[in-house]
């Protein structure tokens, strides 16, 4: 036993020394014990740029790697729903058949479950495990950067690979995952504007004359500038309640709320925001929960709750819209609508649906975190961040790679239809597929991959999504990422204070009579938790950032 431990220790030490010794490509180290054996270049985020000075990277530089000796790269991503292990291995093989000759990279797919993502990545970062490309969910960015887990990619941006990413995302979006000058990740190319509206049961709309009155049509979900005031929604709910007293006109649940679409630039965490609705160009950080915009929204919701338009258990419910709609006693729910939305919603809900855009907005506001939701970044564990960056760049520019990763192998996992869209291979569908990630919306550039045809999508779907983004007006703070590292104490207290009232306010469950008093209690609690300090710090960071932009 002792001998075995000794030999393992020896092996570990040797590995560490070797890595520290070999210099050129050891921006990270496998220094698990956390001792000081790593060299000074260990801390990736701090010394990254000084480190790469010698490597004048060009598109054809593969470092020491060749086709026969490719770089082994671990690509971690979230696997949102189950895939067949064997099918995934086959896809990995197919990816490598392409990646090894073309990029000298041997990819190892590392799917992580949604619920385990934070724990797993954090432990792997701490443990120095083999890990190159990781998804960075924006709320974790600040702490993962401050704990030295994420590699700053700025140094690569002038290379051809960097330019390929900028080409795919545009200059603004490519740099949106930047905090304090550290480029920690690239956003996925997706529809980013959240235009809020209602998804309603078509049969009931038809029956009650709602369809006629507002000219609703099947499969009409593209935004054309038409939107309705929420008072119209109230009229609709009243009709439904009259006709079907036992039906819930509006389903809300504990997380996905109407107030989300009242336009604020949340500035990452919502503690101190820009009041978009009041003034599009303001750069003054204000307390969201004291604004008229917020108050108006929660007052309306409380009124609806009193009138029994809103699901009674909304404040504590977590069943989700599809479950409730399927059960047949729910008329509508609030959601972000985008092209292609209805087809997805109908298949999930089991009913034909209409959509209507609501909210007093001319354009949707585009804030930093609307775009940089999940970001693709490099872990400091990476033995060769340069190669990792090549791979990331390929995710944004190599359609074949994106198709393989998202849809699997052509002819095995999917087929290309006559119109150029794709669907499951013969004999497979959503219930018996073996491999189908369809995760382009959260990592990489899906706009270069095939359009997946779920029955309603046309080959020009990606351009429709891009057009949807055109309705957006950028927030004046777009690109600004608030660094809360020094305020973790306050943020913790603020989260607790907010959670005390949030779900009750956001679902109207407090009732009209209590709106004033609840808002007051909330604001008192927030200020007691240090909101003013956070707002001041945010304002200061924002001002500094704005000055740098000029």
């Amino acid at each position, binding site marked *: 036993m002792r001998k075995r431990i000794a030999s393992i220790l020896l092996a570990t030490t040797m590995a560490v020394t070797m890595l520290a010794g070999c210099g050129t490509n050891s921006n*990270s*180290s496998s*220094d*698990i*014990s*956390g*001792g*000081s054996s*790593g060299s000074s270049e*260990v*801390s*990736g985020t701090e010394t990254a740029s000084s480190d790469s000075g010698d490597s004048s990277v060009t598109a054809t530089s593969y470092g020491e790697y060749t086709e026969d000796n490719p770089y082994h790269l671990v690509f971690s991503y979230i696997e949102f729903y189950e895939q067949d292990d064997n099918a995934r291995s086959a896809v990995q093989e197919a990816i490598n058949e392409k990646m090894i000759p073309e990029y000298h990279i041997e990819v190892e797919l590392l799917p992580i479950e949604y619920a385990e993502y*934070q724990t797993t990545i*954090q432990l792997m*970062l*701490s443990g*120095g495990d083999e890990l190159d490309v990781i998804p960075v969910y924006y*709320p*974790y960015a*600040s*702490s*993962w950067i*401050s*704990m*030295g*887990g994420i590699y700053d990619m700025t140094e690569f941006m002038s290379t051809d690979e960097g330019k390929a990413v900028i080409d795919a995302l545009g200059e603004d979006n490519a740099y949106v995952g930047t905090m304090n000058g550290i480029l920690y990740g690239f956003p996925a190319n997706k529809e980013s504007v959240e235009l809020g509206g209602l998804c309603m049961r078509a049969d009931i709309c038809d029956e009650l004359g709602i369809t006629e009155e507002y000219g609703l049509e099947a499969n009409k979900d593209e935004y054309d500038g038409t939107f309705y005031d929420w008072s119209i929604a109230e009229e609709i709910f009243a009709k439904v309640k009259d006709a079907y007293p036992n039906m819930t006109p509006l389903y809300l649940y*504990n997380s996905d709320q109407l107030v989300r679409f009242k336009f604020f630039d949340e500035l990452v*965490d919502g503690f101190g925001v820009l009041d978009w609705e009041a003034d599009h160009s303001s750069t003054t950080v204000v307390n969201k929960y004291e604004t008229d915009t917020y108050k108006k929204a929660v007052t309306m919701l409380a009124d609806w709750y009193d009138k029994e338009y809103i*699901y*009674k*258990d909304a*404040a*504590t419910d*977590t069943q989700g819209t599809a479950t409730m709609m399927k059960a047949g006693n729910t008329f509508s729910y609030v959601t972000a609508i985008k092209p292609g939305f209805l087809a997805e919603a109908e298949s999930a809900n089991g009913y034909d649906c209409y959509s209507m855009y609501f909210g007093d907005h001319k354009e949707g506001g585009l804030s930093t975190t609307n775009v940089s939701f999940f970001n693709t970044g490099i872990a*400091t564990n990476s033995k060769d961040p340069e190669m990792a960056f090549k791979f990331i760049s390929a995710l944004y520019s190599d359609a074949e790679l994106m198709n393989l990763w998202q849809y699997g192998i052509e002819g095995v996992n999917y087929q290309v239809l006559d119109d150029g869209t794709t669907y499951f291979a013969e004999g497979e569908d959503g219930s018996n597929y073996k491999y189908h990630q369809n995760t382009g919306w959260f990592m990489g550039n899906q706009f270069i991959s095939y359009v997946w045809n779920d029955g309603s999508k046309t080959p020009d779907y990606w351009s429709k999504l891009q057009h949807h983004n055109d309705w957006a007006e950028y927030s004046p703070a777009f690109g600004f990422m608030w660094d*809360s590292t020094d305020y*973790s*104490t*306050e*943020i*913790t*207290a603020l*989260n*607790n*204070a907010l*959670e*005390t*009232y*949030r*779900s*009750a306010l956001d679902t109207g*469950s407090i009732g009209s009579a209590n709106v004033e008093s609840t808002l007051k209690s909330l604001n008192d*609690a927030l200020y*007691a*938790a*240090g909101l003013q300090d956070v707002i001041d710090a945010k304002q200061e960071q924002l001002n500094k950032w704005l000055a740098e932009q000029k």
Partner: protein
Amino acid sequence: MMKSKAKKLKRYVPFYLMFLPGAIYLLINNYLPMAGLVVAFKQYNVRKGIFGSAWCGLKNIRFLFATPDAWVITRNTIFYNASFIIINTVLGIMFAIFICDTINKRMQKIYQSAILFPFLMSAVILSYIVYAFLSQSTGIVNNTILPALGLDAVNWYSEARYWPFLLVFINTWKSIGYGSLIFISSINGIDPTFYEAAKLDGATKWQQIRNIMFPSLTPTIITLTLMSVGRIFYSDFGLFYQVPRNSGMIYSTTNVIDTYVYRGLMKQSNVGMSAAAGFYQSVVGFALVLLANLIVKKFSKENALF
């Protein structure tokens, strides 16, 4: 003289050898990672490692005391744990005695299963079951029981005052089996000749319980209580987070230190702060248990933990 002491010690060598395998495991599994506690006082950096990271003093722990909530969560944590200790002990002993005194062996088996099975239910499922009873729109209590009694429906998940009773009841339901089974084994360990002697003396059932069972249960009760005191700042996270369905309106009676830490940190990913919170909980528990152990020592040296 020396020789006899050495000889005496030698007699104990087999004991130390028996202790050794477990001790090795505790050293590896528990003591070695304990070095990582220093992370509570550090600005953790994964590449510098736990020991290489910069010190940051008490910064990580400040968040626990930053707001008036500190009082509420401390009060709730202590209140619930104290109630749990008392109720689980009293009811646990009662159930154990009841079960041991059933003549019918089949009934005994059924009771034993009944007290143990809730222990198997995960917090998430427990929260669904509780919700099935208490939900406003579909709950059995609001839809069936209260109307039958002619009472108005209650919005359970927004009325804080019901939750101390609900949580204590739910906890009893779930974990009474743990203590009971231990007490049952203690009762089974009592030498039956004691009872026979007592019966010959004409002792009543109550006298038997008081004079035979209680004294032999006392060490178990003391051990259990002392150990629970050590964990008094910790709580069953699932019970306090999942079961009240994270409903904000009832935080005043459901928020405990563990849920506070979780809610504060779930949108961040901060190793140092969660370590600091754990460290604080442990230190308080440690202090209290030292005190409690001293008190126990005063009254019965035998039963002290160490």
